[in-house]
């Protein structure tokens, strides 16, 4: 199928993009990597009036360190995140997750901002930044605002970003320190969206787990913090009993949605298995040199 008719403008600056968004309202659509938007256009699932191509906005590209915060421009491509030394050093969770995002040709175009703005519940990046407690910087014609990640994801393809705002930056606290992170997912084929997945970030000292944040994705309509599961875990030794308690608690955290790839029961089961595996790995990693992944 061929895309429907639309207009197309190359934004020349962030302000220009915002102006276009304001002018076109609902009918305007940001075109970043296009790796999610273009398929929907080619399937005529979306019919925007105006595509606002932000690929020329160099201000939105790049990865830098601001004190203890890693700043990733929204237009930074997956491949740059994957190959970044800063990410490898400061964000091992994201470095671990990135190879699971699609395939090389898609990572060469797709952007982290697009991934976060899209908010696919089965996507890796939203879960990772939620685990790491990131801050999202969005900009509208009235200026910039910062949104804590915990308040950003609202539901299936729904976020706290207003339609006329641009996601400009993702600020992620460096993982440097004694915390560990683990990323695990299950997909039918390599590079597919996950059927179940977990991003975990916290401390393990000896066998005792503290501050662990367990984030589940590909279960509900958005990445979800397993608050009860995390609570059942923190302050405990990682043991069979803890595992059982965490799994029980997880049932009150998650209400997985069935989809083509599996029932709710299967997804719940898989998330429990992944939780156990993630914590087994966290313990091993914590005991190893350096702590982080």
């Amino acid at each position: 199928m061929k895309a429907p008719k639309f207009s197309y403008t190359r934004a020349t600056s962030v302000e220009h993009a915002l102006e276009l968004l304001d002018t076109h309202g609902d009918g305007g659509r940001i075109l970043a990597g296009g790796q999610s938007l273009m398929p929907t256009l080619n399937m005529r699932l979306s019919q925007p009036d105006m595509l606002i191509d932000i690929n020329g906005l160099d201000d939105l590209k790049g990865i830098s360190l601001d004190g203890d915060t890693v700043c990733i421009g929204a237009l930074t491509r997956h491949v740059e995140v994957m190959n970044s030394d800063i990410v490898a050093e400061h964000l091992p969770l994201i470095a671990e997750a990135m190879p699971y995002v699609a395939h090389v040709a898609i990572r060469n175009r797709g952007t982290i901002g697009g991934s976060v703005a899209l908010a696919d519940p089965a996507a890796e990046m939203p879960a990772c930044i939620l685990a790491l407690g990131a801050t999202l910087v969005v900009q509208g014609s009235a200026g910039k605002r910062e949104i804590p990640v915990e308040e950003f994801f609202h539901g299936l393809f729904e976020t706290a970003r207003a339609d006329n705002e641009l996601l400009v930056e993702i600020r992620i606290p460096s993982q440097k320190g004694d915390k560990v992170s683990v990323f695990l997912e299950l997909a039918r084929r390599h590079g597919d969206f996950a059927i179940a997945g977990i991003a975990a970030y916290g401390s393990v000292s000896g066998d005792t787990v503290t501050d662990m944040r367990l984030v589940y994705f590909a279960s509900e309509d958005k990445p979800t913090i397993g608050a009860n599961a995390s609570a059942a875990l923190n302050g405990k030794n990682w043991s069979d009993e803890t595992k059982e308690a965490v799994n029980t608690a997880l049932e009150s955290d998650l209400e997985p949605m069935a989809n083509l790839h599996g029932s709710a029961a299967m997804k719940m089961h898989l998330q429990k298995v992944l939780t156990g595996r993630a914590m087994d790995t966290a313990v091993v990693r914590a005991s190893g040199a350096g702590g982080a992944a």
Partner: protein
Amino acid sequence: MSEEMVTVNMTVNGENVTKTIPVRTHLVDFVRTELGFTGSHLGCEHGVCGACSVRVDGDVVRGCLMLAAQAEGSEVVTIEGISDSGEISDLQDKFVERNALQCGFCTPGMLMTAAELLAQKTEMSREDIREFMSGNYCRCTGYHAIVDAIESVNNSRLKG
């Protein structure tokens, strides 16, 4: 809404081209129908099969997920270009020798992707090759011969 047109200018396989096209034209439709480079194929137009793989400014991308208008000022290389330049002649020879293609419809995309992998010039296992090639669908070969061909070219390039 009437059809919005755009004039694009880019380099395709080393030659500068300027064309006025409907803005909604994706890059592969552009090179196929406007320029006659029919080596890039369409197998899905939703980003999954990889038959449309082309190189834009040095990176392999899905040609169906990029508007031709987005390639303004870019350097686009299709299978015809990479073939004529001789960059992958060893890989092409090996694909033929190993029969790493049957119908050949996936082959241009496979070669474009494999070219990027081989450019890494590192040791790689069969599993690494399979992982890198995992976004390119082939219904005919079962992949084994494709992996063989890439593996053997990588080995000889590393030795060579």
